[in-house]
């Protein structure tokens, strides 16, 4: 046991002080405990960051049938039905097609064209082969009349059309809806809603096709 000079009194007496080694031991233990705790915390933070963080990961795309409301961020969609139709293309004979109806409500703060909404929609005739709807023959309807705009908070029945190869009569069609995201443009300071082929898929809706008149 060692004592510091100021712990020694006159005539070699020892004042009653806490032995230096005990104090050192305690502080060393505290330091080790603190270092261990911070080390564990740092390890936990690192592992959490490497494995993706605490942000909620989106679930797998919803697999459902018609009639269910789907939130796409900018729009809320309720797929209604699908039927076989015929479309007339410029000067060509009528062609078989599928028309999928959906009730769409604009949740944003300004009007959007029906063609804009169609950017986030695709049909999947084969796995890994999405097809965009025919913009020329797709349109919106309000109270039975055609419209080209989806106004905020006014539901519109959007008719999405996909042309079919000859002699094709599918029993069902799978329609994929992608999530719209809100962010700032890379080149300007404008904030805008965007969707693209790389946007996450929110829902895959399988709709039975009602047979209609053939061309």
């Amino acid at each position, binding site marked *: 046991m060692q004592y510091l000079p100021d712990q020694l009194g006159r005539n070699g007496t020892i004042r009653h002080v806490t032995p230096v080694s005990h104090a050192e031991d305690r502080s060393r233990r505290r330091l080790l405990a603190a270092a261990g705790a911070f080390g564990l915390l740092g390890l936990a933070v690192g592992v959490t960051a490497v494995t993706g963080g605490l942000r909620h990961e989106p679930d797998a795309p919803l697999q459902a049938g018609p009639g269910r409301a789907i939130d796409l961020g900018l729009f809320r969609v309720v797929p209604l039905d699908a039927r076989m139709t015929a479309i007339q293309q410029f000067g060509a004979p009528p062609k078989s097609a599928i028309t999928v109806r959906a009730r769409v409500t604009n949740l944003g703060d300004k009007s959007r064209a029906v063609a804009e909404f169609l950017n986030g929609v695709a049909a999947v005739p084969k796995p890994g082969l999405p097809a965009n709807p025919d913009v020329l023959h797709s349109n919106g309807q309000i109270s039975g009349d055609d419209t080209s705009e989806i106004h905020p908070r*006014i539901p519109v029945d959007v008719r999405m059309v996909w042309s079919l190869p000859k002699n094709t009569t599918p029993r069902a069609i799978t329609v994929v809806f992608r999530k719209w995201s809100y962010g700032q443009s890379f080149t300007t300071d404008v904030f805008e809603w965007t969707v693209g082929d790389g946007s996450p898929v929110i829902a895959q809706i399988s709709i039975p096709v009602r047979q209609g008149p053939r061309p």
Partner: protein
Amino acid sequence: MRLLARALTGVCVPALFALAMWFTSVKPHLDGKVQNPLVTKGRIGAVTSNHVFSIKVTRVDVASGILRHGAGGDRRLRTPGVFVIVYLEARSDTKVVSLGHARLATRGGLSYAESGRSGTISLTAPFEPMLWRPARFVFEIPRNRLAGARFIVGEEKPIDDLSAETQIDLGLDAARAARLLVHPPADYALKQS
């Protein structure tokens, strides 16, 4: 006391770590609007001029249905909301101008473009310098958005950065909007002016 301090430290430190991690994901919504059109404000019934054109909104009508005349006969356009028809006169100040980007701005920050219905095409012929000509715009909005609606119109340019724009207060306060919504006509015929 020491135990309490340690417990408090044990709670505060992870909380501060979590707060620091959350800050890295925060993106402030900073919209400079430095390229937005240059807006001139006015009121219904008064001439409002900007550096490109002048307009005077003469009348605002509200309807629950619009009568459309067509080759196959007359047809009524219906809406779950209301149609708002804005009549105005406009002229250019220096060169031929077409009006565009017309919209109704409503309370709550919602903006409604022209109706988009096939039978409600707006009348917006190009405007000559110093010659007043009538124009008409048709909008479709929910009934609860009529009060406080403002009409906004600018130049018809694909990119409207720093272009001229005019905002008109239509005088649709809560009382007037309620009166207009009591019995809006269901077979309204669009007028030329």
